[in-house]
């Protein structure tokens, strides 16, 4: 039976792993992810969750153990943050190259040096090109629902790729919210038993991931690109079906809010999307035509949907909680790249800040609207609230 509980997003991620009937968990502690693996340890040791729990000695080994377990035929889960994710980097490529549908919760945390345990998105965005599907969540309910949806998507034979479900440290990880944990039988009906494209089988021995000459390597890469395109096509359908079954859906790839007639669209990722909605309501009350679009699936990037959004908009303001040093935030770059072939494309301003509240977003919106009226952006990238 479904139940509503009040808990942190980290614990909710543990509930989701249990509800997905994950069979092998391999994990290593790191702040602010730790309470996910603590919760799962409780579930496994109390017998509530029927899974093997491998307490590995590093995140690199966590991913390696997930790769081994997924290759040997079971559903796997892990979770990490920041430096742990960076340590996994090599194994992330291996997991996607091996086409193993592993799902991992990433609790976003800024990278050192200097040490920081607070959130930005640079840890997971640095893993942009590893061949992993990337989801960014805005609240605890979405964390639960996205983990379930991610398994369904990743284990689709047209996809067979791993996925990161990202949630911002502390803002979600340690914040209590009411969350509906759906009925287990209904989750089972939505998410069939584990499926992968291949398996280590003594009755059908083959050598997996052995040396491939350039003659074939490009085809393997192309198949990953195709799988990403398939994921982009399938995800909105999966989200809709999920909505029909459970009453929660998130716009598929982009969570759009009052965008239809908006002159200005504020593009965000993660929890900033919630603040943006508050800002939009406030600005609308002032008569300003503003909408918000939260990029929920960052890989595959929803290029076509971004173009559709841009058709009627006069300016897009992207807010990045991340920067690519020497350039700009990825969200700004990728939205620009998506719009390049549009004949009548809107202006674009890239902005980023520290604690981006709805008030900050309102200021960003007003500055953007001023530039829209001027017909040009004064500064392509603005570091909002930066101390001089």
């Amino acid at each position, binding site marked *: 039976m479904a139940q509503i509980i009040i808990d942190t997003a980290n614990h909710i991620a543990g509930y989701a792993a249990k509800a997905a009937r994950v*069979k*092998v968990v*391999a994990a290593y502690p790191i702040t602010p992810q730790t309470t996910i693996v603590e919760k799962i340890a409780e579930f496994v040791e109390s017998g509530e969750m029927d*899974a*093997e729990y*491998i*307490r*590995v*000695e*590093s995140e*690199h*080994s*966590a991913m*390696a*153990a*997930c*790769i*081994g*377990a*997924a*290759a*040997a*035929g*079971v559903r*796997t889960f892990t979770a990490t943050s920041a430096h742990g994710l960076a340590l996994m980097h*090599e*194994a992330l490529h*291996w997991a996607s190259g091996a086409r193993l549908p592993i799902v991992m919760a990433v609790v976003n945390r800024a990278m050192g040096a200097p040490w920081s345990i607070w959130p930005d998105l640079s840890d997971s965005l640095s893993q942009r090109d590893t061949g992993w599907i990337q989801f960014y969540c805005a609240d605890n309910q979405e964390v639960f629902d996205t983990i379930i949806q991610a398994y369904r998507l990743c284990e689709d034979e047209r996809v067979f790729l791993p996925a990161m479900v990202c949630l911002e440290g502390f803002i979600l990880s340690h914040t209590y919210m009411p969350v509906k944990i759906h009925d287990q039988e209904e989750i089972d009906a939505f998410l069939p038993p584990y499926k992968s494209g291949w398996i*280590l*089988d*003594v009755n*059908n*021995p*083959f*050598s*997996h*991931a*052995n*040396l*491939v*000459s350039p003659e*074939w390597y490009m085809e393997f890469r192309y198949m990953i690109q195709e799988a990403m395109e398939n994921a982009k096509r399938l995800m909105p359908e999966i989200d809709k079906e999920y909505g029909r079954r459970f009453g929660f859906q998130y716009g598929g790839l982009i969570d759009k809010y009052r965008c239809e007639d908006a002159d200005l669209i504020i593009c965000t990722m993660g929890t900033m999307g919630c603040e943006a909605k508050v800002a939009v309501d406030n600005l609308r009350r002032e008569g300003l035509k503003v909408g918000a679009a939260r990029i929920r699936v960052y890989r595959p990037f929803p290029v076509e949907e971004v173009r559709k959004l841009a058709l009627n908009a006069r300016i897009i303001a992207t807010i990045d909680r991340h920067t690519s040093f020497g350039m700009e935030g990825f969200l700004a770059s990728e939205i620009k790249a998506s719009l390049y072939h549009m004949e009548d494309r809107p202006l674009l301003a890239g902005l980023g800040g520290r604690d981006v509240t709805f008030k900050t977003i309102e200021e960003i919106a007003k500055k953007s609207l001023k530039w829209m009226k001027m017909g040009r952006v004064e500064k392509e990238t603005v570091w909002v609230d930066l101390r001089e």
Partner: protein
Amino acid sequence: MKIIVTIKEFPKEEYLLKGHATCAGCGPSIALRLLFKALGNKVILVVPACCTTVIQGPYPYTSFAVPLQNMLFEATGATCSGIVAALKVRGLEDITVVGWAGDGGTVDIGIQALSGAAERETNFIYVCYDNEAYGNTGLQRSGATPYGAWTTTTPTGKKERKKNMPLIMAAHKIPYVATACPSYPVDFVNKLRKAKEIRGTKYIHVLAPCPTGWRYDTSKTVEIGRLAVQTGMWALYEIEYGKFRLNPPSDRLIDKSKRKPVKEYLAMQERFRHLTDADIEKIQRWVDEDWEYYQKLASNECV
């Protein structure tokens, strides 16, 4: 378990098939063939970056009749933990999971994942085939390269001693640690068969002569391996539930007079040809000291 006495008792089945891509005279490939003979084909093999990456043959071919997961250089131990866990979930615990890695992938970059897997008491066999250098990348020094040996990154000879990995693994208190050499196939096969019967982490360190890296004639691989043992440069032993035992013929070599001088072993390999008499004396002294230690281990004076 029935102890095998002669190679005539080995199974006829071959799971290392024709067409594999080793160098002529490759010691590791002899060890691999013996491994399959000992364990059969209900085996899942995990292979990190090492010579075996090439030995198996390129996509879409394989020369192994067992399923093989190629894996990242440093991740063999952890990958085996994952496979073992999944097989347990699926009720397939009669399948033997084997990590098969070179010396670099074991004593250097892979030591953390191996140590973790051992500490977690992962039920698997880990075999390090030790050719005392990074062979696949063109013979660079590893932590297992012996003192004085030429490699491409120690052009005037290595200045440090070989890391003693079997005893490091023994310090993990795992149920079974053994050393082996393909020149003594019956010993190696029996050790693998024993390891298969024991639950927990089993570690076997195989000295596997490499004509390409050690610079000797490709017909001499078995002879070089024998000399390694006969000179005491390499000792055949096993540590079963903490009990140390030297195996034949090493068990007869505690008496120094029974051991051949290390010079005989060193002189056969060009990688040692620049050694001075003083170097050789030093190596001889270290080997003698090792044997004093083995004697203490064998008489349970220390562990």
